[in-house]
Each structure stands twice: as C-alpha cells, then as structure tokens.
C-alpha cells in the first residue's frame, strides 16, 4: 500500500509539494532581499568598537567579514541569508518555548515522591522559599529575556523580510541590543546538568521532554542572535524606513 501511496505522490508535479513551494519562496526572498542594501547618499563609515579607527564601510559578499586595519577585530560581517535565518530560528525558538514550559525538564523520584522541574517552577520555588530576588533573577535570565529576545527578533526581522518595517521596530531593535548579554539559557542548561549529577546519589532523576526542547531552543537562539550583524540590521531598518 505504501508503495502505491509513494508512487501516487511521486506522480504529482513537483511544483505542488509544500516543500518545493517553501524552497521556492525562500530562494525568491533570498534573491530579492539578500544583498545588504546600500545606504543612500555618499560614503558611509564604520568605526572599530575596540580601537575607534575609522573605515569606509565597503559592501561585503555574503559570508565575509570586514576586519579592522588597526587591531584586527571584526568591524561588521555579512551573514548569509541573514533575515530568513533570523526569522526562521527565532520563530522555531518561540514555538519550542511553549513546549519547554508545558513539559517538565527533570523528573525526580525519591522517597516515594515524584517532583518535576520546569522553568517556572524553579523561579516559583525560590520565591516561595524566601528569596524573591533570586527567583526574579532566575525568571528574568531564563524566561523573560529569551522570550523577549526571540519575539523581538521575529518582530523586527519578519517584516523586514518583505521589505517592510514594523511599527516601533527601531525601539525594539535598540532594546534587543541591550538585552543580549542577559540571555542565559545555555548557562541554565549547564546548571541542569550539574544538579543532575548532584542529585544522582539522592534520587532517581530523568530528563523530561522539556530538557530536550530547551536544548534546541538554546541552539536556535544562538543561531538567531548571531544570524544577523548589528550594522546590517540597522542599515536594513534605515533603508526600509525611508
């Protein structure tokens, strides 16, 4: 039977398949929007963040980075298919964040009691046991910041993919920049591993679905955050605003 289904499916023109359509849209968007837009009006400059050396900002090919003449640090880089990547990865991260918060991270069986851990319960337990500041810090660094970062990136880069600018996108982009160092999901993941080893002798601890989803969220967030260069994002915003 499966053979028949396969044959039937294979007989359809390839343009009908969803994957084909997605591929076509992706490449069309990439072709149309992929080049880093040149800002209107004469020469543009970039100053090195480390040594303040002034450079004329030349356009770069995809995947290339411009290095400072003086200190050799990266000035700006042109990430391949940046907008499509950022949109895709931040959307994936957002969807998986729902999964992360619905399913437990760790399941522990000890002394006949089963306790489960997810992100919210960790913060709640800290607040309940008398250190609200720590609970707030945990919630800020592992729930709020990743959520705001992912949704902000989606909000800014999604419309840009179609050459439009979302209302208030410049403000969001400003805040994205400031929030980036406070996104600590990879640190939390290490924390989960350490506490797993710590509890190994006390009780029977197992990974839940949330843990694996969180691992993927971590990878997606890393890909989304590093998917677009700051200068490119702001150049695109400036061009789209006009």
């Amino acid at each position, binding site marked *: 039977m499966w053979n028949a289904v396969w044959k039937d499916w294979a007989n359809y023109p390839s343009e009908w398949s969803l994957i084909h359509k997605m591929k076509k849209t992706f490449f069309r968007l990439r072709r149309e929007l992929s080049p880093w837009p040149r800002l209107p009006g004469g020469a*543009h*400059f*970039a*100053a090195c*963040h*480390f*040594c*303040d*050396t*002034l450079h004329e900002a030349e356009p770069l090919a995809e995947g290339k980075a411009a290095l400072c*003449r*003086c*200190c050799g*640090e990266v000035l*700006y880089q042109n990430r391949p298919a940046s907008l499509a990547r950022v949109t895709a990865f931040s959307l994936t991260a957002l969807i998986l964040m729902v999964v992360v918060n619905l399913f437990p991270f*760790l399941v*522990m069986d*000890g*002394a006949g*009691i089963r*306790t489960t*851990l997810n992100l919210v*319960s*960790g913060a*709640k*337990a*800290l607040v309940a*046991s*008398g*250190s609200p*500041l*720590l*609970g707030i*810090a*945990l919630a800020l*660094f592992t729930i709020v910041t990743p959520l705001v970062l992912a949704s902000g990136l989606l909000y800014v880069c999604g419309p840009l993919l179609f050459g439009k600018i979302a209302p208030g996108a*410049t403000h969001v*982009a*400003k805040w994205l*920049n*400031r929030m980036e*160092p*406070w996104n*600590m999901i990879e*640190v939390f993941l*290490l*924390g*989960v591993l*350490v*506490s797993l*080893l*710590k*509890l190994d002798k*006390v*009780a029977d*601890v197992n990974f839940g679905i949330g843990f694996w989803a969180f691992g993927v969220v971590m990878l997606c967030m890393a890909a989304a955050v590093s998917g677009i260069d*700051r*200068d490119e994002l*702001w150049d695109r915003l*400036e061009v789209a605003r006009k």
Partner: protein
Amino acid sequence: MSDRFPRAIELGLAGCQTCGKVSRLVLGRCPRCDSKLFMRKPDSVRRTVAFMLAAAALYVPANVLPMMSMIEMGVVTENTITGGIIYFWQGEAYPIALVILTASIIIPLLKMVALTWLCLAASGKIKPTPGTLSRIYWLTEMMGRWSMVDIFVVGILVALVQLGNYMTVSPGPGALAFAGVVVLTMFAAISFDPRLLWDRFNALQIDSSPSKEIDS
C-alpha cells in the same frame, strides 16, 4: 605619524553605541536610532571601578555564607561554594568539580583582576598594551555569564528536592550575594570602554615620537 590610521575621535565623529552608525558628535543624538551619542562611554572607568568594588565587597559573603542549606531527616547541612567543589572532588567527579571551580571561583576572580588591569591601563597608571587588553576585555565580556550557573543549580535543587520530612533544600544568603557578584561584574564589563586603551596608547606614542626624531 602618517602611518597611523585616522580615528573617529580625531574628526569629531562618534560611533553610535547602539546601532554603530558613525555621525558627528555635535548632533547629540544618533540620526538613525535616536540614542544619545557619546565619544566614549560616559564615566567609563569610574563606573567600572564602582561596580567592581561593590562586586568585590559581595564576593566575601558569597564565599563565606552558605549557598543553600539541606535539611535531611531533621539534620541541617549548609553548603558553601568551596564545600560543593570539595564534595564533588572527594566523590571523584573531577570534571564537574572543575566546572564549578571554574564557573564560580576562577571566572569571578579573573574577571575582577582583568577589570582592575583594564582600568589601570585606561587611566594611564600602567603601560597600555591595547592588542592584548582588548582580547582580555572581550573574554571578560563573554565569560561573565557562566558564573551564574551556581545560582541556577541552587534554584533547580530548591525546586526539585522538596521531599517533605525526608529532605528539603532552601537557598542561603550566600546565593543572593553571589548573584550580586555576577550581575555587578557584568555591569562593570558593560560600562568599560575598550577604546580608552587605544586613546592612551596613541597619546603615549604621540608624546614619544618627537624624542625619537631627535635621537635619529
């Protein structure tokens, strides 16, 4: 001095800290993202030193006071950071002991040493070597977050180990102090401006260049 590259500061241009656009400082605000323009981060060294001193002050209670207390069958055991490392080391879990040692003792200490060094160099007390120092700054900025792992472990254990009379874990005052250390050193790193190192370095070179000409 013709071999030196032009710097934005010499032309009255400032690179925006938020969006990277280079524009004239006299504009006051960045024409692209409307954040305030500064030639250098305001009060960079002073702010860094202030944050760092606060972090150093908190570092003592963070290490002396217990991070968490474990109540097992009515017996209370209090765990400090060093206690945790020794526990893992004696349990022959060397990799995990090394991870905690690095994240919660070595990184904060190195960070404070590095920032002190950077501040001294930026204010001209010691010789600035901007190439190495900006690498160190970059590392300080990257590594700071990882110290938070101990706080997260406390949070996870508190949430998980609530087994009634058999065993419960509650956070100690050391955890709050340690979280303070991490957050404050992160603020210290954010408020430091690595371009000050190059400012010092170039100023020194300009000072010494006439004497070189006399020598030759």
